[in-house]
């Protein structure tokens, strides 16, 4: 295979992975942008949604794509319950308490999954799994392409919802100034709960699309959760367009680092890029200073 084809393949693969990162990052950045709390359990929400898809495939034989609406609904509820039970009490607490609240949730969910399912890697076999497209020598796996398209659609939907609907404006109003929004008759508690619901639902979509071709295991949230933080911080906490661009850039950097250097170093290159970006642009690449 020529260098050009391999490079092209790497870029395509990187962008496809990047699309998944954008989707998990979208959920995190919606929550942060509106409620101003970083969800350290975000990657574990992804893990939960993948396990839900797995359980549905075992129990009723659904493929992850068929499970998607159910998983998204379940994750939406999980987001709201998390807000009600865990986040609301620490809304006005110091940042340390807020970090520890979702950090505790992360430890809890990861332990719970390990307790129920053990540490094994599982796959959900589907007819799509082994299929791929061949475009001029560059292969695109079908489930990954579906994931990328799903990510773009979801992104457009959330962007439209937040910037073009009245409820979306109410969300932005609460994010901008809670007191003023409350005076205008907006229930800030409801809006915050909705933001958590939407954020978790995005992860539900990501989880199903990912479970279509990737392993399901309790630690999966550690890898993706961490890359998600990097993407969100890179794009600027709370910036939706930033998360989209950053997801694709991080996917590309990861793939190119793996291809040009060594796969075992790829994450450290990503982390180093993150450090350099936040040191020189402390609000993220596209964040407003």
């Amino acid at each position, binding site marked *: 295979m020529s260098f050009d084809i391999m490079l092209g393949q790497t870029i395509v693969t990187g962008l496809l992975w990047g699309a998944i990162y954008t989707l998990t990052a979208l959920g995190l950045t919606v929550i942060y942008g509106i409620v101003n709390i970083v969800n350290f359990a975000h990657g574990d929400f992804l893990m939960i949604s993948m396990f839900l898809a797995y359980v549905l495939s075992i129990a009723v034989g659904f493929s992850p794509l068929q499970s998607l609406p159910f998983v998204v609904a379940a994750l939406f509820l999980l987001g709201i319950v998390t807000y009600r039970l865990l986040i609301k009490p620490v809304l006005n607490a110091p940042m*340390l308490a807020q970090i520890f609240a979702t950090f*505790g949730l992360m430890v*809890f969910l*990861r332990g719970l999954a390990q307790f129920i399912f053990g540490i094994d890697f599982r796959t959900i076999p589907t007819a799509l799994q082994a299929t791929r497209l061949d475009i001029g020598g560059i292969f695109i796996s079908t489930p990954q392409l579906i994931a990328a398209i799903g990510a773009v659609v979801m992104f457009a939907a959330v962007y439209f919802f937040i910037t073009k609907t009245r409820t979306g404006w109410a969300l932005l109003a609460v994010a901008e100034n809670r007191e003023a929004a409350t005076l205008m008759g907006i229930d800030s508690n409801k809006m915050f709960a909705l933001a958590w619901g939407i954020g978790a639902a995005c992860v539900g979509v990501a989880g199903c699309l990912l479970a279509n071709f990737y392993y399901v295991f309790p630690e999966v949230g550690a890898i993706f959760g*961490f890359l998600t933080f990097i993407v969100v911080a890179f794009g600027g906490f709370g910036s939706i367009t930033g998360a989209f661009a950053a997801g694709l850039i991080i996917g590309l950097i990861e793939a190119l680092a793996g291809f040009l250097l060594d796969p075992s*170093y790829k994450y450290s290159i990503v*982390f180093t890029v993150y*450090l350099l970006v936040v040191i020189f642009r402390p609000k*993220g690449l596209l964040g407003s200073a």
Partner: protein
Amino acid sequence: MMLKNIYSLFAAFILAVLLILPALVAQTFYLHILILVFLYALLGGAWNILGGYAGQVSLGHALYFGIGAYTSTMLMLEAGVNPWIGMLIGMFLSVSVSAILGYPCFRIKGHYFVIATIALGEIAFVIFTNWQWVGGAVGKHIPLLPPGLAVFQFAGKIAYYYIALSFLVVQLVFTYLMQKSYLGYYFQAIREDEDTARSLGINITKYKMAAMAFSAAFMAAGGTFYAQYLLYIDPESVLPNVLSTQVCLIPILGGLGTVFGPVIGAFVMFPLSEFIRASLGGSGNALDLIIYGLLIMIFAIAKPTGIMGFITEIVRARRSASADGAGQAAANVRRE
């Protein structure tokens, strides 16, 4: 004044018990648990200086533990350097690395900083896993030498017990003195409100770096102790993500920004996980993680001051109850 006397009396009593304990505890298993509890209290206390006092949450602190473990081990294997000297060099290296990383990182605030520390921990893990000179993923064995204080190797567990205890005591005394000095006040001012602290003329970056340096030094000392105690290190055991998590759980449970909080946290957390593992048989069932997670969430919501917060409140309540004695009691009766 009363409160302080009660605490110091209590601390002296506990120390006396701990000093004679090895004479009473015959089973090596319990000594082993106690040694690890002391080590974790030391590490939790180290994290507490930066996280609890100065309010800077680092989730990559295994990095400094690993530097301590690897420095003394590699110096001993490659140059025959005595592990005690190696420990001091490891502490120095750890502080240097903390300064190099801290200077740019402390320009980043809040969540960006937390994520930067996770990234640093992960980068260190990848580097050491791929670095063949330090044994890569396989790790390094420390050769057995004729035991003795001079070579930091001992036949039984009792000597390790006293060394771990004395490391911990040194750290507690340091933290106590630090808390009483201007350093402690500056750290807490930064934790409470950075902008106000800056407006009062405190050099924020300088004092954050100082907190990080003390923290890194104690982590590194713990790293050398761990290497000499188990005589084997690899990235999985001295640089893992989960260690970074544990060292911050300890002061969260015990009480952030208090001298004895990490000790209480370690005494609660470590036996708890051993007990759960022993009573349920085998590891990997992760029930301990479930319980830790629940505890952290509960403490974050209900009691951010940890177990120390409870104790202080109870002691204060007792004191005020006895101070205005009968009146208060009468009020309580009337309320009922």
